[in-house]
């Protein structure tokens, strides 16, 4: 478990970084938190001949809101989201609920949200959240920058629209409106391991009618899944308990495409998707109600 030989550079600017990544003679890998990359290198599954360390690059650690969206720079660690107030509104609650499922504190202190998107593991919490919320990634190479919406970004296990010469400098998440309830629920065998299945859910309710829902499925396919059939089953409906059950079945049967894993065959994973989607929606609805009650409280 020792990596093969590689070179290492630690640039100070985005320009230097993308120049290093753009060297056509080399297989480069970006290291930020290194929590996945280093393991893969130790296992000889990834053998970059150049490791580009972005930890000293200025301007990549920004986390802030502008123009109705949250911008997360490439060096923002998972741990930044452990406090719900790190991000305003329901989005902060969703992030906080999601992030506590990522590995354990030492990993969250080093690993980054953008790194998770770059790595694109099918069981990544952030990837499903980004897909469900229509996040927008900014990718930069030596010729300039481009925006890639999350729905075009994920292409398979560890496969994305990012070109090898590109650095993901940041990702934007639209903020969630105050009439949106959120929930993130994960099911895994121990606190140490990857999700068997997890679900990110939002539910927007106006006058007792569901006007929007965004459901992301973690590890329910070879890539993150947005559960469009489940969302569709909810739209325009009045809030009712059996809705969530029905949406869960739709997610399991129409949206999920589970891959067999040790101790979790596709049949079991579909069951877990159905159950978790139902529970996440129920919890999102409760969250939405308590937010509405809080607003009423505030008006008095």
């Amino acid at each position, binding site marked *: *478990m*020792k*990596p*093969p*030989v590689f070179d290492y550079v630690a640039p100070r600017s985005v320009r230097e970084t993308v120049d290093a990544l753009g060297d056509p003679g080399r297989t480069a890998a970006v290291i930020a938190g290194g929590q996945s990359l280093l393991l893969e290198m130790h*296992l*000889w599954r990834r053998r970059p001949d150049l490791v580009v360390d972005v930890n000293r690059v200025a301007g990549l650690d920004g986390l802030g809101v502008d123009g109705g969206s949250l911008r997360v720079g490439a060096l923002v660690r998972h741990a930044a989201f452990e406090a719900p107030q790190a991000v305003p509104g329901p989005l902060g609650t969703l992030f906080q609920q999601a992030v506590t499922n990522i590995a*354990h504190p030492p990993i969250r202190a080093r690993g980054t949200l953008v790194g998770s998107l770059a790595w694109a593991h099918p069981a990544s919490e952030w990837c499903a959240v980004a897909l469900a919320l229509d996040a927008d990634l900014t990718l930069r190479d030596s010729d300039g920058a481009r925006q890639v919406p999350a729905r075009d970004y994920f292409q398979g296990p560890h496969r994305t629209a990012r070109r090898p010469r590109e650095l993901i400098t940041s990702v934007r998440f639209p903020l969630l409106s105050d009439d949106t309830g959120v929930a993130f629920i994960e*099911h895994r*065998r*121990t*606190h*140490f*391991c*990857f999700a*068997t299945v997890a679900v990110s859910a939002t539910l927007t309710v106006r006058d007792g009618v569901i006007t929007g829902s965004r459901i992301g499925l973690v590890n329910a396919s070879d890539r993150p899944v947005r559960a469009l059939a489940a969302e569709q089953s909810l739209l325009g409906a009045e809030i009712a308990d059996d809705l969530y059950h029905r949406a869960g079945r739709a997610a399991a049967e129409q949206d999920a495409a589970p891959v067999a894993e*040790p*101790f*979790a*065959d596709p049949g*079991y994973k579909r*069951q*877990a998707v159905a*159950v*978790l989607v139902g529970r996440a929606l129920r919890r999102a609805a409760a969250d939405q109600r308590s937010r509405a009650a809080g607003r009423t409280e505030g008006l008095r």
Partner: protein
Amino acid sequence: MSTWTRREDERLLSGRGRYVADIQVPGCLDAAFVRSRVAHGTLRDVDCAAARQVPGVVGAWSAADLHDLPPCAHATADLPDLPPMPHTVLANLSSDEAVAGREWPVLVKDRVRYPGEAVAVVLGEDRYRAEDGAAEVTVRIDPLPAVVTPEAALDDTVRLFEGLSNVALEGSTGQPVDESVWQHAAAVVEGRYRQALLLPTPMECRTLLAVPDGDRLTVWSGHQAPHRLRRELAAALGWPAERIRVVVPDTGGAFGSKSASFPEYVAVAFLAVRLGRPVRWIEDRLESMLVATRGRGQDQRVRLAADADGRLLAYELHIDADVGAYPHIGAGLPMQTAWMATGPYTTPRVHATLRSVLTNTMTTYPYRGPGRAEATMALERSMDTLADRLGIDPAELRRRNLIPPDRFPYETPTGRRYDSGNYAAALDLALESLGYDAWRAEQARRRADPHALPLGIGLSCYVERSGGEPGGLHEFGSLEVGEDGVITARCGAASSGQSHETVLPALVAASLGVDADRVRLVDGDTGEQADGVGSFASRTAQVSGALLSHLSALLADEARDRAAKLWDLPPETVRWSGGTVHGPHDGAPAMDLAALVRATGPLRVDDRFESAMAFPFGTHAAVAEVDPELGTVRVLRLVTVDDCGVVLDPAVVHAQAFGSAVQGLGQALYEGMCFDDDGVPVLTDGLLDYLLPTAAEVPPFVGRDTCTPSPATRLGAKGAGESGCIGTPAAVVNAVADALRPADRDVLQLPLTPERVWRAAR
């Protein structure tokens, strides 16, 4: 007795522990092994040429080209070809017959028999370079069909050894049960239990550093039995044992997995001698998971009969054990299960039969609670099935059958002689500590509420064996007093984390009546202690502790004899008290040990002390809540009541009980490996593929104990430390079964993954 501050803690907690990998030896080479990716196959070709060109690689060898090594200048390095793995006939737990014709090569010669079996070894200036070299070795293996379960291997359609059956050993204990007993019994229950292969998973994987010096070799290894390692390496090298010194530095756990020599050890010692250079092998986690020993691995079939009142009439256990690719101690371990099949009950007829079956998996070997854990699981699961069948409360069913205290020593139908016990007391304390009746009431409430999550209560009464088997129940040691009055205790034990350094000196000090800080321990070093047996089978307190207590008495006698001569008094008039010899009356001369040594010369007592087997016991109880939609199990409470006789240090014993209970929880719920279609275990992501319980999985835990001294051992102590691996798994499984009450309880096989529990709940 009392709780002492651990002497090890300051060093270990401040990062100053010294493990084999921390030992710096100039010019030391690191070994990396090239391993088979297939489970079973014919080795066609190994080419190490490219590896030898890698910068920093010092050498690379397959079994075929080892004779190409340049002759070693040293006369003692004139060795035969790579020796086969020595097998250990330990206390009748293996047999020559099982091993004959099935030797374990250090490097594969012609046939690969388990995934990860070493086909070549590369030495580099460090591990990075050695691995770079290993990556350049090309290996051609023609795959053969792999058999990875006893069921698949039993019929011998695929043989691991040409002309020899895959069944390495057959055995039985007790008498066959007459068919009429089963026919006339009020209730007969049957069960089939698969005891999964488990990984012992010590924090520190296996390590060995071999440093040649002239015609001698010093070996540093994280190890449980340095004298055994010395003996086996000497046999492999064709050396007298005296030329090898084995030293055990700080060791990060073993759980049974570090008590012999293994192919890698022999290769490293051999090459160190050949090259006249220090060589080490520091096993990494992935290697360990692939090729370190496995525990358990039994397919069990049981029948249990009782009368209408629940009195047990007969018990029958058949074991097809998966013992891995080469018969080693693991081939004999199912006998331990057979011998312990009677458990804590008065069952008059018990018959156990077994077959040890070779499979294309790494060798099975002792893992914390070996043999006894499997025996407890089979019997205790069956007891719950029987309770359910008869409509008798599981606690009550057990109580009716426990061997009563006045029946000890108790001869079991399976050939064990239990030394002492008060099994009902342990059961009662467990029920009380759990709040058994309150949980039963909560269970009734939930069963009446369709929205409540099902809840179950599981019990497991166990009896196990500690100390070892006849032939291995002794230990060697000495006590020596210096002119400064410091007492040095030496013995054949070797700590892999069991607080020897604290407990054994304190025991000597208490025996002699001196301050504990006057006594120091030297163990785990064959250079300091000529003979030794080691630390396994929960034997150190029971056997080495008894030895040191015995030596303390010898030392006091010797001191009194010397004082008597010095003072010209009859020896029986000299008293020993508080580390000082006193004359017969007030005002008579008195002399402390240091002064006595200065006056009479070096004082040292040596001996071999024979102990006896002991039979610790207890009751474990678990409450589990099941989410039937997801199949998740939440253990709401775990209670362990253990009785290891006289406890030397409660803190140490309780920590062992807790740690082993958590390992037992892992066995019940998490630990297990899957195999791919070619028979290779899926472990490529390390501990993400083989889940251990983490701190976050530890349930609310209550650990208690009862004390029934052993009449068979000098201190009244029995072994402690394996209890949780033995008692806890069945308690957890029984709790889940009690929650779900599936029509077929056999669907609940270990580990109880969410998927399995969900299917059982449907």
